[in-house]
């Protein structure tokens, strides 16, 4: 496909003709929550608020610990540093010119909104990210985030997350970007002015994206190299492209499948594509409602898809898309795409030249509701006779499935398991992966052999645990041991206990 941007005047006209109610909504959105003066009220509001049906994603943080309150002028990072798993960092209204990172589990970062006053992260156009996290069970709510270069909220391998009711504007390349995550909920956020995808789910599993409003971005919502995702009840308007689900080649996780896109408003996504040169979404043609590229088992149901000037839905393989470097380890084709009943109106009135060429071949002057290009198999369409279809879609069969009502969401029943491991097990691993570098069982290495230490400290693991916290040089012929005070007392004891229990097997014969 072509990456050219279409003429601006067309966009302006389309917007003017488009959606008055959207503008009205936008000015008010997100509706400020009621003033919450007390901690209890705030938490009660957050827990029991508008998102009640999905509010208690299992395993997310901040609901059982203490509350650390941060006010204008304070460092949020200091509060995060003090917080223990389960704690909530409560952020009062004010302007926070900070980047916050959360590298521990079960922490909630929750803003307090008083009337129209939000706690606002301001990147001033020079900071990279507002919130970075890698912990499991992180919750980020009620924050206004503006003027960052990279992301508003970015997670790397943080499972069981909730990102809810944030107001994000001009916050860089992505607005909300969980990556390498399992089990997460993104809901009731409003995002605009993002150079790539406003909500970008990358290389993740079991994600729910609901009730968000995304407008004025290059891409509204993108599900990329991810599996088991539901995108529902969102409003995507005035983006260059509304909702996308891709397999992007060259990434270490190679598939996208089991994605449901339903009950969304995908309206007048005709914004100029202002993505960075060379980015994948710079190849997304302006005026596209939904784009499915090389993904499998995607179901599109009951969306309102209208006024998208290029096409309502585009289904593409890698070869037909701009800027794509093939990857022999990925399937380049869309497979088993199911377009069930949706509402289409006034799509494809100003299509890109490749689509115009397809129209010419098919002797039609009507732009498409649904167009497919490239390979793939097993795709279907529910009501083909009422749609303007083009390309390979004309050979699709009729869907046997009529609804996705059987899938409430793809979130996990139980949280993705914690990554902390038992103290005893960790003691063994630390012995093997750290201590054994210097203490072999019965051979002199850098430190005395474990066998000798077992004699010295027989039945006295605490002696070892205490010694390794602050070692003193004991023997002329061995170097001083580096202190291990960074390990907790429990962990030091576990290591010591394991060390005393080690009994290396006898040398075994060489194996084939």
């Amino acid at each position, binding site marked *: 496909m072509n990456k050219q941007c279409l003429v601006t005047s067309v966009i302006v006209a389309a917007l003017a003709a488009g959606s008055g109610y959207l503008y009205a909504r936008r000015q008010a959105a997100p509706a400020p929550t009621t003033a919450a003066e007390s901690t209890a009220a705030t938490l009660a509001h957050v827990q029991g608020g508008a998102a009640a049906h999905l509010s208690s994603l299992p395993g997310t943080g901040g609901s059982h610990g203490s509350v650390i309150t941060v006010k204008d002028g304070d460092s949020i990072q200091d509060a995060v*540093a003090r917080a223990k798993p389960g704690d909530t960092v409560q952020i009062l209204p004010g302007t926070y010119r900070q980047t916050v*990172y959360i590298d521990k589990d079960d922490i909630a970062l929750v803003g307090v909104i008083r009337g129209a006053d939000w706690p606002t992260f301001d990147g001033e156009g020079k900071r*990279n*990210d507002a919130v*970075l996290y*890698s912990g499991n069970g992180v919750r980020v709510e009620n924050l206004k985030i503006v003027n960052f*270069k*990279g*992301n508003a909220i*970015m*997670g*790397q*391998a943080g499972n069981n997350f909730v990102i809810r009711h944030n107001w994000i504007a001009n916050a860089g*390349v*992505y607005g909300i*970007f969980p990556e*390498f*995550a399992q089990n997460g909920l993104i809901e009731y956020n409003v995002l605009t002015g993002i150079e790539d995808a406003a909500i970008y789910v990358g*290389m993740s*599993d079991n994600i729910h994206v609901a009730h968000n409003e995304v407008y004025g971005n290059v891409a509204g919502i993108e599900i990329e190299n991810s599996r088991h995702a539901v995108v529902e009840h969102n409003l995507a308007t005035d983006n260059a492209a509304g909702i996308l689900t891709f397999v992007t080649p*060259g*990434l*270490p*996780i190679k598939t996208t499948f089991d994605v449901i896109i339903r009950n969304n408003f995908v309206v007048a996504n005709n914004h100029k594509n202002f993505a*960075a*040169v*060379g*980015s*994948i979404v710079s190849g997304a043609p302006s005026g596209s409602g939904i784009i499915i590229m090389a993904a499998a088992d995607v179901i599109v149901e009951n969306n309102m898809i209208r006024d998208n000037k290029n096409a309502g839905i585009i289904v593409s393989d890698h070869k037909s898309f701009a*800027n794509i*470097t*093939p990857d022999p380890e990925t399937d380049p084709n869309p497979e088993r795409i199911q377009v069930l009943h949706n509402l289409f109106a006034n799509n494809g009135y100003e299509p890109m030249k490749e689509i115009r060429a397809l129209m010419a071949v098919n002797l039609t002057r009507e732009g498409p509701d649904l167009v497919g290009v490239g390979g793939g198999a097993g795709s279907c369409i529910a009501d083909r006779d009422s749609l303007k279809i083009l390309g390979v879609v004309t050979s699709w069969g009729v869907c046997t499935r009529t609804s996705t009502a059987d899938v409430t969401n793809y979130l996990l029943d139980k949280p*993705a398991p914690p*990554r902390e491991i038992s103290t005893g*097990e*960790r003691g*063994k*691993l630390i012995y*093997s*992966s750290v201590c*054994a*570098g*210097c203490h*072999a*069982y019965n*051979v002199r*290495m*850098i430190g005395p052999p474990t066998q000798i230490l077992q004699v010295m400290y027989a039945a006295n693991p605490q002696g070892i645990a205490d010694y390794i916290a602050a070692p003193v040089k004991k023997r002329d012929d061995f*170097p*001083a041991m*580096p202190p291990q005070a*960074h390990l907790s007392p429990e962990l030091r004891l576990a290591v010591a206990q394991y060390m005393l229990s080690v009994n*290396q*097997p006898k*040398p*075994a*014969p*060489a*194996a*084939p």
Partner: protein
Amino acid sequence: MWRRLRAASMLAAAALPATAGAFALSHQCPPSFENREGHCRLQTVYQRYTSLNDAGVGGLKTGLPPVRDGFTPEQIDLGRYLFFDPALSRTGKVACASCHRPSRGFADDRPGVGVTGTAERRKAPSLWNVAFLRRFFWDGRAHSLEEQLKGPLYGAQEMGNRPARLLTTLNGMTAYRALFAEAFTDTGGGIRSDHVYQALAAFESSLISLNSRYDLYAHGVADALSPPEVEGLNVFRSFVARCAECHTPPLFTNQQIAVIGMPEPKGRPFDPGAGAISGEPTLRGGFKVPSLRNVALTAPYGHAGQFATLRDTVAFYTGGRGHAVPSGEKLQLHWHIWEPKLSAGELDRLVDFLDALTDESFRPTAPTGVPSGLPIPN
């Protein structure tokens, strides 16, 4: 403080006496391996973490990709002798260790030490943590260590040997015949090539570096990194610099091929990299994303060693998309190569952070002598 401790333990490692006895094989698994019924199995805290789709990429507490382990202690130790023995080369002067220098992160810092004395087109990459890799060489053309190591062994400019000649050499040495017989059960018909390859692969797979200060931070020790290093980590993982998108923890590589448009050294022709292997035009100029573990030790940087320092290397990424692509070359640059506009301070912090990935506490000792009796190249 951590820096000093690590230095102390390295000094201690250097002072280690050689393995007892002339050319006896160790029955001890290397550090970070547990001896289970005669086979060495990796032990690391990372093994108790998971990774999405078992891909071994993610964030701080993310599991590793599948590891190549299970060699015997004897095979690993035999591999160590072979690795340092110049008898493996045509001239008897070049060992694996000549280019994969242990003191330089098992990478090379001086082109032209091969048998012909001419500089190789590409720099020898680090061998730390190769047990987790599934693509080898800068262009990713080999898929196992055994396949890879034949490249330098028999490469005309590198060790210059031939398979038959190598076996004649080794079978002609009493010491090696005895050592191979101890490490393998099936050497009755003499030492075979696959024995040599497996022993070298066993030794290389034992080079584990997962105990850096970064790792302590990842496991939850918040003050293991200094404030500037944490700042560097945050630049590293931000979507502005985007380092972590390809240099993904925990190995700091996603093992993919990327076209990023690094310059060649002055006067050298353009290297098509993976494009020359696959014939796929969009991979022209593509190279395997290298791991950054121990990267502070492995200067110079880039596939051809074109950058002298880490600071120069990180500055490349903020020099403008395609700024070093020669005129006339049309490369399909990776989408993460863009205009991040990193400040000088941010580049400095990135280097600070990369320094925190250093851990050579389990660097094996070089033998004091090798079975061929040849001098070990330094």
